[in-house]
């Protein structure tokens, strides 16, 4: 699975945890209320936060307030069908880090995804 795959959302929805943890890019899965339901190993390594600390929390307000803006959070809230790449800067482990984000949401899908790739 590659972050640029056209059908990456389908692959993610089908993948089990082992597959997700083996991915080279960060995957944050959220439910409709933007509570974190999936935090894969690559994302955990990037942020330095273990999944236990993050799961069940509201991602945009309780985990990563720096994404709670018009570029990321608002798009998840406003767009029912969303598949967009956003160049962004995360400050991971105290270092400002340029990243490429992919925002994924589809009507009726059980999960929404934020994918994070260090550039």
């Amino acid at each position, binding site marked *: 699975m590659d972050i640029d795959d056209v059908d990456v959302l389908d692959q993610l929805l089908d993948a089990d945890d082992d597959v997700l943890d083996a991915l080279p890019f960060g995957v944050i899965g959220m439910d409709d209320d933007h509570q974190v339901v999936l935090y894969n190993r690559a994302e955990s390594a990037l*942020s*330095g*936060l*273990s999944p236990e*600390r993050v799961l069940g929390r509201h991602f945009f307000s*309780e*985990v*990563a*307030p*720096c994404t709670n*803006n*018009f570029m990321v959070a608002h798009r998840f809230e406003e767009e029912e069908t969303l598949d967009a790449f956003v*160049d*962004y*800067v*995360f*400050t991971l*482990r*105290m*270092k*400002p*880090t*340029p990243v490429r984000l992919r925002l994924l949401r589809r009507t009726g899908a059980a999960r929404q995804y934020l994918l994070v790739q260090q550039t």
Partner: protein
Amino acid sequence: MDDDLERLYELLYLLPVGVVSFDTEGTVEAANPLAVQLLNPFVEPGATGDAFRLLAPLVSDLATLLDERAGEKVVLARQRTTLRRPDGPVSTVELAIHRPRPGLHVAVLSDVTELVRQEQELRRERDRIRVIVETVREYAIYALDRDGRVDSWNASGERLFGLSSVDAMGQTLAQLVVLEDEGTERALEEAVFAGWRRLEGWSTGADGVLFYTDTMISTLVDGSGHPDGFVVITRDATEARLREESLRREADTDPLTSLANRRGFDARAVRLVAACEVNGVPASVLMLDIDHFKAVNDTFGHDGGDIVLRAFAETVAAAVRSLDIVGRLGGEEFAVLLPGADVDAAARTAEAIRAKVEQLHIEVAPGTSAPVTVSIGVAPLDGDLAGALGRADDALYRAKAGGRNRVVLHTDTGDVDRTG
């Protein structure tokens, strides 16, 4: 240890201020997300590891600033910069840079957009109020501290009271507004209790002339609800007051003789009677009626009658003291209230009036004098004005029946004719 580090990461991710530490070359050693986030749209891509470029939207030449402030603990005191984002909204970021040890710099960034908006709102509000306060005419708007002394003064007060700020500061309300009926200290206490208090009084104006003031005191409260001074609005109410007084005078005065009319006599007499009662002073009333006044009217016409009434009124008014009250109760009937006079003293006054009236030569037409006499009933007052007037009227009736031009006293043992 890992757990500690994780907690530290989380703290930094959630910290509501932005923090960046960097060395003398500008290389970022550590940063938290908000620091980058606040500047995100304004920072060139790839600038993230370089504090000089990262903070460039807020400090144009940070490298030079570090040199200039070398050796100082504070590189930059809090400084605000307003940034307009490409998608429209304006945000204001406050930046401070400290140097905890040589070679290490810590920048702290806060989003103060809302704070600035509130401050501007507050400033606009203050400006609006200042303009109102300083431009109103005929009103003075000023403030007193908790002890009731002026602690804020402006152009409106200068205009109304003619006092400069220097002269007005520290003055008490009593010095500014002289009250007719009660102390200003009590007024302030009542204002504290009720939240506001209105009072009126005579004051000295800018031109040194007395003017009538209508003053509204509103109590200010501090955050915990305790009284914290007063805002006072004083208005020049002289014209309204004079108009009111003149209306009242008109309503209480007989236009022909300028004496009090029935209404004016009653109103003033009731107050005077009450004062006599309180002080244990005697008082008496006279009822006076011009003899054969109908014949005067018939002979000399109504104009002649009016001349007689005026001359008679002047004579009575001149014969009594200024504290006595003389009223024309109607037609040719008059009354006098004599405070401090027992029935004998009142009888002497009545007799003096009768004698003077008898000697009048009232010219009702060129070369023609009307002979005028008066009958007078006298009664002592025992607290009840209407009762005393009634008894004096009885005595007056006897004076008429006894042949007119005489004074009759009403006493417990019966009427006594003092003339004849």
